[in-house]
């Protein structure tokens, strides 16, 4: 290679790097791209990669995680329309990929902006998982949890958890949880137990973080209910509703700062006497 050729290669290499730096500066290095799918069903993909289904299931699972994470973290307008087909392709290619059923269903079922807000599709994914891996109690447990938490169907959820309890290796508490669901008024406690289980079973990452946030939301709601009870107590003692939470604090009934677990002050409605989580709080939910 002559020195002129070497110089040309070096020059073009430097220009290529400069162009990439320029592109990153103008577009941002962590922008969500415009993802697209050329094949929309698992059957189509499966037919195209005989002998390599496992590898392609992995590739589609990585795409699913990247797509979901990308839309959640970086997209201006979150769009999750590729989420279901990506999960469908993954589990069609590898029907034994437990993680794709469990995480995929949660990605789909969680309400926006955390997930895609498509609980029915998430539950359909888990139902396919239960059919493919009938001896897997975790899939049945998740199916019961999601049915209760997002479809609010306690009876169906209890039945599913009962079936999960019958699966070999299933923990004993599934049956007691199933019974708890059918007790009126125990919704929040049941939800807390479910999220606690999800938190303990999940690895560090999206699902664990989500379970942690749900538990803190429940803490915030319970804090608001406790304060509402104290407002009622003060009303009973003084004969009138306090004008603000500062009155409650001054009365000595409530101790410490009246804030939710995220540190945001609770809101108080002096006409109804109810305390609620502030809309400014990260723990607020409609």
């Amino acid at each position: 290679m002559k020195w002129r050729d070497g110089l040309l290669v070096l020059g073009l290499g430097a220009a290529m790097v400069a162009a990439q730096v320029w592109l990153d500066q103008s577009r941002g290095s962590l922008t969500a791209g415009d993802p697209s799918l050329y094949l929309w069903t698992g059957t189509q993909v499966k037919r195209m990669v005989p002998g390599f289904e496992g590898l392609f299931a992995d590739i589609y699972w990585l795409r699913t995680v990247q797509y979901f994470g990308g839309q959640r973290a970086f997209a201006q307008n979150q769009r999750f329309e590729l989420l279901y087909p990506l999960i469908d392709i993954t589990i069609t290619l590898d029907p034994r990929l437990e993680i794709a059923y469990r995480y995929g269903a949660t990605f789909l079922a969680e309400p926006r902006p955390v997930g895609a807000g498509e609980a029915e599709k998430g539950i359909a994914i888990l139902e396919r998982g239960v059919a493919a891996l009938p001896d897997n109690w975790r899939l049945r447990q998740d199916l019961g949890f999601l049915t209760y938490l997002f479809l609010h169907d306690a009876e169906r959820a209890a039945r599913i958890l009962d079936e999960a309890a019958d699966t070999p290796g299933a923990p004993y508490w599934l049956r007691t949880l199933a019974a708890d669901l059918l007790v009126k008024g125990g919704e929040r406690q049941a939800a807390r137990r479910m999220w606690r289980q999800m938190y303990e079973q999940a690895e560090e990452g999206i699902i664990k973080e989500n379970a942690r946030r749900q538990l803190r939301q429940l803490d915030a709601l319970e804090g608001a209910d406790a304060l509402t009870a104290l407002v009622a107590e003060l009303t009973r003692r003084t004969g009138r509703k306090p004008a603000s939470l500062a009155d409650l604090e001054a009365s000595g009934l409530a101790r410490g700062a009246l804030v939710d677990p995220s540190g945001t002050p609770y809101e108080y409605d002096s006409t109804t006497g109810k305390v609620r989580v502030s809309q400014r709080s990260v723990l607020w939910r409609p």
Partner: protein
Amino acid sequence: MGRGRLSRILAVAANTFRETVRERVLYNLVFFALLMTLSGLLLAQLSIRQDEKIIKDLGLAAMDLFGSMIALFIGVSLVSKEIERRSLHPLLAKPLGRDEFFLGKFFGLAFTLFVNTSAMAAGLFLTLLATGRSANLGLVGAIYTIFLSLLLVVALAMLLSSVTSPALSAIGTLGLVIVGRFSDVIRNMREVVPGAPDWLVKILYYAIPNFRNFDFKEQAAYGDPIPLSALGQVTLYAAFYVGLALAAGLASFRSRDFE
């Protein structure tokens, strides 16, 4: 087989192995090593708990894919190159039979593929160990069957290259390898084409090499044991089909006029 005959076959095989190494075939191992190292480092973060399965899937698929490509492209050129270079004539003028030359070429490339597959397998096991994951016996079984499938690809490539040009034999072998992976579709062809005669479906199904037989990647990735009986059946199938392809290739090579 006489001792002299065997030593002549081994001499051709050793020469073929040296030739393939000189052609830098084993460079793909460097790429494989990089692939395994990067996947070991990156996948744990990207895949949510699936790194072990992905490393196994990736390793086995790479062995299958790279091995098949080497088997195909080197396999079709093994004999034809000697004819084009006119180096076959002085070789055959020596006390070396055509069948010894043909079989020696096959065993030489088979040994190259054995070295290649073994090195890749070592890379896969090392990656699993380095990432604190376990390697199971099923993995060895799956690698063994991949190696058997590579021997079949070589035999098919040599058969076709003994009857036609290198380009056509490459296309033909590639076609057989691809179609052979769709053996389940061929078997159930009548569901799509109800008018297809049963005898035709059966002939196609049994005549086309069934590469699905050699696929134990899923079991290996999930740590399932692969029964010895299954490995035995696949070994027998490979032995018969490779034997058939080599015998047909030899028959064609023996009767071919190189003038």
